[in-house]
């Protein structure tokens, strides 16, 4: 069946582009190792940081507008929110050790449950907090339903279809990223999960996500700080990692 449900909706350009870029990301990813370094000479991390903040503020304003429109029944606005926040839910589900199929189900279930709750959620931060909390709970539920004899979490990449490369293969020509991946994966589970999820959260909503991860606001600085500090210690020991 070639039917494309998306063509029923007029304003799909944005989400379509998002899907296209997701589709292309694997192919495009390999040659971009130097892309971040390109625009940032010495002292670049501070410049990059403020660039990220500006983009974050813009995303927050946009998300707030979409949320207002979606609550009034604007399906294009809902679609835009879905395209914007599905990545953080995907990585939330996957960081719980689910297979790709199970993670897709969890992301879908999370959004379906949201439809009934949308009226009660007023702010983007609350939306993200609710989504991440729900996705984690759904992931736990799906994991409990399908738990086999294996230990959870160590077979996340074992379900790759034939022809799909493992992380080691994908990163073989990129020592820096492979070092980063290995360092994150060797952190305590809690820290690895926190850093992976936070990496996909629009920056201004970090505190909402920390709350969703069950860390009281007062402790999120130290907790986040500890996780980043542990990561830096691991990276510092790795000759393949060079701080920028």
């Amino acid at each position, binding site marked *: 069946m070639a039917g494309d449900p998306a063509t029923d909706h007029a304003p799909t350009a944005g989400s379509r582009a998002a899907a296209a870029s997701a589709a292309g990301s694997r192919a495009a990813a390999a040659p971009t190792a130097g892309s971040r370094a390109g625009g940032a000479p010495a002292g670049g991390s501070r410049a990059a940081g403020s660039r990220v903040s500006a983009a974050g503020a813009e995303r927050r304003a946009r998300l707030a507008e979409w949320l207002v429109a979606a609550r009034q029944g604007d399906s294009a606005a809902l679609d835009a929110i879905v395209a914007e926040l599905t990545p953080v839910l995907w990585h939330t589900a996957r960081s719980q050790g689910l297979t790709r199929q199970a993670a897709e189900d969890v992301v879908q279930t999370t959004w379906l*449950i949201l439809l009934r709750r949308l009226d009660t959620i007023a702010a983007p931060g609350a939306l993200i907090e609710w989504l991440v909390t729900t996705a984690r709970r759904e992931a736990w539920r799906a994991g409990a339903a399908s738990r086999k004899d294996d230990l959870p979490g160590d077979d996340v990449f074992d379900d790759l279809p034939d022809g799909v490369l493992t992380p080691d293969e994908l990163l073989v020509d990129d020592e820096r990223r492979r070092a980063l991946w290995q360092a994150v994966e060797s952190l305590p589970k809690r820290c690895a999960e926190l850093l992976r999820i936070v990496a996909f959260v629009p920056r201004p909503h970090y505190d909402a996500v920390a709350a969703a991860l069950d860390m009281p606001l007062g402790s999120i600085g130290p907790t986040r700080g500890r996780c980043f500090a542990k990561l830096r210690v691991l990276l510092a020991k790795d000759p393949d990692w060079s701080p*920028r």
Partner: protein
Amino acid sequence: MNTAEGSSSPHLTPEDQVLAAEIADVYRMIDPVPATLVERLRFALALESADFAVLRPFEEAGLPSGVRGGEDSRTITFDSEILTIMISVSARDDHAVRVDGWLAPPGEHLVELRTGGGAQQVRADDQGRFVLDVVPRGLSQLVVRQGLDDPARATILAVTPSLIL
């Protein structure tokens, strides 16, 4: 509890932000969001109401995960607070499948199968059984409605996520 100390802590340092961006790059590369997921979500969320139970899918034990598309015959069970549905999907040909289903507790609900090309409805019998004889392969979603005589007025009771038949 938002003390001066607490309120300053939520912000990542610029260095942390750069590291977080690099972590995102890595996971985007090694574990990308499935290319069709957002499109499947758009399809699954395009419903006329929102007040329904969500039917969570799980594969029958013994089947390998991650291969929900393509086999000749398979069974999927969906569970929600109000009802459970089991469907058995068997291949007819390259373009169509047959869906045999059973819902519990039994009720003469309307079972609708949405596809990209439209929707078909059947009424479950008093044992909860239903059959959708010819269903086009591809993206679809099960929607359970009240068993009213006028299907147009039957509100949605429960829905599944989208699935590939």
